């Protein structure tokens, strides 16, 4: 399959606010159910093991006019909860059977309550993750949370979920994680062959199609991208940080690239690479998932960091690993986690002489000129003066 065709399909999925791919999957069998979830991370393996399709919801993007959503929230919060409410109120998510709200910030927690009121007959769960990373405390708590989730899904589907079933799903998601890592590594090695805007669309597609289809799509992309002849440009290598929840408009990603930056790592749609390593497929599945969360998961502002000196180390490691020349802190306006952590991260970068710039966006930002100016001059600074 040619890259053009793959990206065309991804773009269709990206633009489709009716979520027809998930609707069609569900319509193929009356027993099928769709479980939606919000950023940053949920254990999709358990949803999959329950025979349901996980559906990632990251707001309405820049193509959706938010009218009802604004009535639910005060003006000084981010846009993703408003546009998610808009999706719900306008019936675009009527087909889903449940929705998970991971603990990321107060706004999303409140959204879970609102969702419950708007959809009283649907499965709604606020999925809390540990803030203590000691096995006997946070680990034990998290296993209970996962059991609670598993039992809730079993009640919803009317079928128990066995340990073996979750292990089989872990194996499938291991493959997805491997491919995601491979694509990210491929982009880091040869960023001109896998533009960030394409990789983003490819990862975004994974939110709204079955995991098996996404795995096949990523394999096709890797094969096609390897073959594609694309010119190498003299662009600088940057890491994007702060975009783990509300997503930037696609044009913003394109603008950063066009202004002379190769994005060699990012935290867009972080859930698909939240767990950093392959998981065992022959143990107590929930314990395995809990261990991975506690000890082998990505770091972001939405995850509690127990030691101040550890803040920013994950980002610093990424800068080194990907030979990045600078960091672009791009966070949604009013994103408490990202914007409160930003000063600590920028301090850490300054301590290590990593050049950086910062700006804010909203999922519907339309004016790219100021971004273009900042990233363009940043790229010039890296190329000429550093």
């Amino acid at each position, binding site marked *: 399959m040619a890259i053009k065709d793959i990206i065309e399909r991804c773009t269709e999925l990206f633009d489709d606010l009716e979520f027809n791919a998930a609707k069609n999957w569900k319509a193929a069998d009356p027993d099928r159910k769709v479980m939606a979830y919000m950023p940053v991370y949920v254990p999709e393996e358990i949803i999959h093991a329950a025979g349901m399709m996980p559906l990632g919801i990251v707001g309405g993007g820049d193509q959706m006019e938010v009218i009802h959503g604004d009535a639910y929230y005060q003006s000084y919060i981010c846009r993703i909860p408003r546009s998610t409410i808009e999706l719900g109120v306008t019936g675009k998510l009527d087909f889903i059977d449940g929705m998970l709200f991971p603990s990321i910030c107060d706004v999303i927690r409140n959204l879970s309550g609102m969702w419950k009121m708007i959809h009283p007959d649907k499965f709604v769960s606020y999925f809390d993750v540990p803030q203590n990373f000691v096995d006997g405390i946070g680990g034990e708590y998290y296993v209970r949370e996962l059991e609670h989730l598993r039992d809730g899904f079993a009640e919803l589907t009317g079928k128990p979920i066995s340990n073996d079933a979750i292990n089989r799903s872990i194996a499938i998601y291991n493959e997805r994680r491997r491919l995601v890592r491979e694509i990210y590594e491929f982009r880091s090695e040869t960023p001109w062959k896998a533009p960030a805007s394409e990789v983003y669309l490819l990862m975004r597609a994974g939110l709204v199609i079955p995991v098996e289809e996404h795995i096949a799509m990523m394999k096709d992309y890797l094969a096609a991208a390897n073959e594609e002849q694309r*010119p*190498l*440009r*003299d*662009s600088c290598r940057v890491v994007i940080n702060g975009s783990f929840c509300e997503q930037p408009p696609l044009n913003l990603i394109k603008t950063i690239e*066009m*202004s*002379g930056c190769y994005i060699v790592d990012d935290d867009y749609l972080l859930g698909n690479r939240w767990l950093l390593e392959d998981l065992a497929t022959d143990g107590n599945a929930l314990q395995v998932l809990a261990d991975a969360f506690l000890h082998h998961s990505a770091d972001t502002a939405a995850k509690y960091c127990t030691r101040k000196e550890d803040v920013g180390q994950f980002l610093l490691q990424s800068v080194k690993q990907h030979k990045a020349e600078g960091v672009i802190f791009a966070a949604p306006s009013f994103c408490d986690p990202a914007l409160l952590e930003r000063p600590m991260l920028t301090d850490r970068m300054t301590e290590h002489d990593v050049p950086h710039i910062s700006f804010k966006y909203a999922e519907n930002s339309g004016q790219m000129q100021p971004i273009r*100016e900042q990233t*363009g*001059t940043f*790229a*010039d600074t890296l*190329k*000429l*003066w550093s």
Partner: protein
Amino acid sequence: MTISAGIDVGTGAIKAVLFETEGEQINWRAKRNFKIRQRDPLKLARTAFEELLEETGLDEAQVDYTATTGDGENVPFATGHFYSMTTHARGAIYLEPEARSVLDIGALHGRAIKINDLGKVLSYRMTSQCASGSGQFLENISRYLGIAQSEIGTLSLQADEPETVSSICAVLAETDVINMVSRGITAPNILRGIHLSMAGRLAKLLRVVKAEDGIVFLSGGLALDDGLLGALNDSLTDMKLKINARNHPDSPFAGAIGAALWGSFRYQKLLDQGLLEKAS
């Protein structure tokens, strides 16, 4: 010796230049300036580049670095792209070594840039409201008045009683101009009024970026408008800014020149770092 090309894709025109550099020795080999006039800018950029090669007898493979600037990010044969402020600053230093600030006045915007003696951007400020400080606005006015763009500067300098024009909004300013024509105000007085209005805004930008010494170098499509240059120097005097504005016959090429020279610099840097494959 490094051979580099610079291509400045502007809103109204494409400027392309070709340079040879050997240490401190800089040799400007060729230049092209094409009005876009609703043609495909990418094709026009290619044509300009090919004409540079033809004039200098070079093959494309002999060009070490092709740098774009302005809206040239999508030019497919470019090695790299530099932001327009960066290139105008470098171009200004090449054409006027005493320049310590630049006024880049293009078809759609005006921008004041404070620079150092190496051409490094220290601060900048752009016109923020609308097109009334731009070349496109002036082009529209010349059409209303039925005069050629090349006559604007000369006529403006003949003014004896300039009319005041709105400095805020291009729509209001155009209405002003239509009223002036119906009141029988002469074209030189209308044009001088417009130049003074634009110059006032541009001088304020220079004050904001703290342009306090050296020469203010004019670049961009309006740089050679002597009427605007005169009005600008008057405004600078009125605002008690002890700086003088100056242009150069090659002012419109400043962005392309900067791109080519930075391209050459970058090529050498990559060579020194052993990263030349990035400039392939």
